[in-house]
C-alpha cells in the first residue's frame, strides 16, 4: 500500500483495483445466464456468474480486511464513513421490501384497489400464524438478543463469549431457515397459484434470502473473531453484520404481523361466504 509519510488527510484512497470490473462481469453473466435459463436454457451460465460473484466477494473483502487490520487505512473518519455507507445500504433494502409489502396490501385490501377480491383467495389453505411462523418469530427475536450479547462481549474485550454468542446467533438463523424451508415444502399452494402465493412467496422468500445472507455474514464474523480480527474499538464488519441482522428481524416482524396475522384476518378484507 501507499506509504503514508506524505499523507495529510485522514481518508483512504485505495490503489486501482480489478474487483469492480470483475464483479460487473459476474453481474453481466448472471443476467444473461438467468435470462437464458428462464427461456428454456441450461442454468450453468448463471452458475458461472454466481461463482465469479462469490470470487469477487472473497477477493474484494479480503483486501478490505487487510487494509483495516494490516495497513491501518481505517482512520476514525473512514470508520464513520463506512458506518454511514452501511446504514444507507440498509435504507435501500428497506425500500426494496417496501415494494413487496405494497404489492401485498394492494392485492388484499379493497380500499387500495378496485380489483381486490376475497382475501385470502378461495382455495388457499393458510399457514396458521400461531404455528411454525410464531416459533420462527421467537427464534429470530431471540437471535437479535443473542447478537447483542455477543456485540457487548466484543466491546468488553471478552472474545470467547463473543465467539460463542455469535455462533449461537448464526445457528438460530440456520434454524429459522430450516423451518422456513419446511413451511414452503408443506404449503399446499405453489408459486403459480395466483396472487396469494405470489405475494407470500416473494415477500417471505426475499426475507429468507436476507436471513441466509445475514447468517453467512455472522459466520464470517464468528470466524474473524476466532482469528482475532476484531478489536473492542475497531470492528466495523461486526457492527454491520449486527445491524443487518436487526434489519432482517424487523422485516420479519412486519411480515409476521401483516402477512401471517392480518392476512388471515377479516379486517379490511372481503372474506369468503
Amino acid at each position, binding site marked *: *500500500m*501507499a*506509504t*503514508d509519510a*506524505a*499523507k*495529510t*488527510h485522514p*481518508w483512504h*484512497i*485505495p*490503489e*486501482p*483495483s*480489478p*474487483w*469492480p*470490473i470483475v464483479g*460487473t*462481469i459476474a*453481474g*453481466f453473466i448472471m*443476467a*444473461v445466464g438467468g*435470462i437464458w435459463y*428462464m*427461456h428454456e436454457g441450461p442454468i450453468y451460465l448463471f452458475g458461472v456468474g454466481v461463482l465469479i460473484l462469490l470470487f469477487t466477494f472473497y477477493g474484494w473483502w479480503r*483486501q478490505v480486511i*487487510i487494509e483495516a487490520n494490516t495497513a491501518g487505512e481505517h482512520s476514525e*473518519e473512514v470508520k464513520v*464513513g463506512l458506518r*454511514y*455507507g452501511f446504514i*444507507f445500504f440498509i*435504507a*435501500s*433494502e*428497506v*425500500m*426494496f421490501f*417496501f*415494494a*413487496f409489502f*405494497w*404489492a401485498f396490501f*394492494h*392485492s388484499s385490501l379493497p380500499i387500495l*384497489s*378496485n*380489483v381486490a*377480491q376475497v382475501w385470502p*383467495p378461495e382455495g388457499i389453505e393458510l399457514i396458521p400464524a400461531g404455528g411454525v411462523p410464531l416459533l420462527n418469530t421467537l427464534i429470530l427475536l431471540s437471535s437479535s438478543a443473542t447478537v447483542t450479547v455477543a456485540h457487548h462481549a466484543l466491546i468488553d474485550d471478552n472474545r470467547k463469549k463473543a465467539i460463542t454468542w455469535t455462533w449461537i446467533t448464526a445457528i438460530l438463523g440456520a434454524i429459522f431457515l430450516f423451518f422456513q424451508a419446511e413451511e414452503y415444502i408443506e404449503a399446499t399452494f405453489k*408459486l*403459480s*397459484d*395466483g*396472487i396469494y*402465493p*405470489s405475494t407470500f412467496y*416473494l415477500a417471505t422468500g426475499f426475507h429468507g434470502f436476507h436471513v441466509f445472507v445475514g447468517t453467512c455474514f455472522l459466520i464470517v464474523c464468528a470466524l474473524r473473531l476466532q482469528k482475532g480480527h476484531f478489536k473492542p474499538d475497531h470492528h466495523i464488519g461486526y457492527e454491520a453484520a449486527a445491524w443487518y441482522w436487526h434489519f432482517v428481524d424487523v422485516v420479519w416482524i412486519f411480515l409476521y404481523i401483516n402477512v401471517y396475522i392480518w392476512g388471515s384476518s377479516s379486517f379490511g378484507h372481503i372474506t369468503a361466504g
Partner: protein
Amino acid sequence: MSDTAHDHHDHRPTGWKRWVYSTNHKDIGTMYLALAMVAAIVGAAASVVIRMELHQPGIQFITDFQFYNVLVTAHGFIMVFFVVMPALIGGFGNWFIPLMVGTPDMAFPRMNNLSFWLVAAGLVLLVIAGLIDGGPGTGWTVYPPLANADYHPGMAVDFGILALHLAGASSILGAINFITTIINMRAPGMTFHRMPLFIWAMLLTAILLLLAIPVLAGALTMLLTDRNFGTAFFSPEGGGDPILWQHLFWFFGHPEVYIMIIPAFGVISEIVSTFSKKPIFGYLGMAYAMAAIGVVGFVVWAHHMYTVGFNVETRAYFTLATMVIAVPTGVKIFSWLATMWGGSIKFDTPMLYAMGFIFLFVVGGVTGVTLANAGSDMAFHDTYFVVAHFHYVLSIAAIFAMYAGFFYWIGKMSGKQYPEGLARLQFWITFVGVNVLFFPQHFAGMAGMPRRIPDYPDAYAGWNMISSYGAYITAIGGLLFFVVLWKTLTSKETVAANQWGEGASTLEWTVASPAPFHTHEDTPKVGSQPAE
C-alpha cells in the same frame, strides 16, 4: 494487483488499467461523461428516426410497428438511464463533489468504479434487448399487460428488465457513495449551510435515488417472475392487478424525474451566480426548496395515472399535492432571476445555456400545472401535450444543464478553452431547434394527437412537420457540439485556475486547470463562502 507495494503515493496508473481499474473520481467522472455521450448519440438517433417517420401523415418508412415502439422505448430508456443520469450525476457529480467539498476523493473509490461499470453493463444489456426477439415495444414505463409474456414472449423485455436492474444497482451504490462523501468528508468550516448549491443538489438527488430505485427493483422483479415463473402480481386472471405496476413504477418514476432535474438545479445555480458576479439570492431558500421538491416528489406519483379509475377524493388529493410543488419550484425560478437582477452579467455560453434552461423549465412548469389538474389531464393524458410538457420541463432542460455544465467546467476538466463563438452558435441552433421541435407539440396534443403512434390523421400534419424540422435543427446542434468538443480538446489555448473571475467562488476554482490527478491532498479551510 493493488496488493503490490507502490513506493510513491502519487503513483499514477497508466494504460488501460488506469481506466478499467480506476479509483480516481476524475477518471471515473470522465468515463461517465464519455458513456453519456455515446449513449446520447444512440438515443438522439432514435428520436430523429421517430420524427422522420412522423414528418408527414401516413407511413413513411417504418412498416414494422413493433420497431416503432422499440424506438420509442429505446429513446426513453437510453435518455433517462444512460444519458441524463450518467452525465449529470455520474459525470459532474463525480468530478466536482470532491473538488467542491474539499476532499481528495469519494468515500468509496472502488465502489465508485463498480457503479460506472454496472451502468456500462446495463447499457450493453439494453442494446441486446433492442436487437433480440423483436425488441421491447413497451415504452419506458413497461406497463403490463403489454410487457407480460403474452405480448412480449421473447427475451427482449427480460433483457430490458435486467438492464435496469444493473443500472439500478449502479445508482444505489452511487447514491450511498455520494451521500457518505457529502455528509462525512466536507472540509472543516463547510457546514451544511455553507455547501455550494450543486452539493445540496447532489445530496438530495442521491437520497431520492437511494429511496426510489429499490422500489423499481422490487417492481421489476415482480414483472420478471410474472413473465417467467407464473406469479400473478399484475395479471387479473390470477387475482393480480396491472394498476399495481403503475403505482410501483410511478412511486419510483416521479422521484426519478426529480433525480434528473435536481442536479440540473445545482448546475444552473452555480452558473447563474458565477456569471452574475453575485452570491446566489436566497441561498437557504434555494437549498430547502430542493429538499421540499424532493420530499413532496414522493407523494404525488398517481398524477401519472389519473385515468385508471381513481375515486374523486384520490384525484383531488393528487391534484393538490402536485400543485404544491409549484411553490418551491417558483422559489427557485424567482431566486435565479433575483440573482441576475442588478448583477454584472456576462453572457458566455454557460450563462446562455443557464438562461435557456430557466426559460424551458418555466414553459414546461406552466404546462405541468395544467396537467396536475386531474380534470384537464383526463383530456390531455397520453397526448402530445404531455410529450411537449415533459420534454420542456425535464428532458431538454436537463440537456441544457448538461451543455451548461460542460461549458462551465470543461476548462477545469481539460485545461483547454472551448471556442466561445462556435459554442454560442451551437447554443442558438440548439435553442431554436428544441423550441421548434417541442412547442408545436402542445398544439398537436391539445388537438388530440396521441403519443406512441407511428401514424396520424391529416389534421395534425402541419404541427408535426414543423416539429420534425425542429428535430433536424436540434440534431445539427448536437453534431456541432461534437465539433466544439473536438476543437476544445485539440485547442492550444489553456485556461487559468479560475477562468471565470470573482463570481466563481467555489473550491474547484482554487485548484489548477486541468485539475491535477489528486487534488485537495491538503485539506482546504473554508471561511464564510459560498453562502452569504
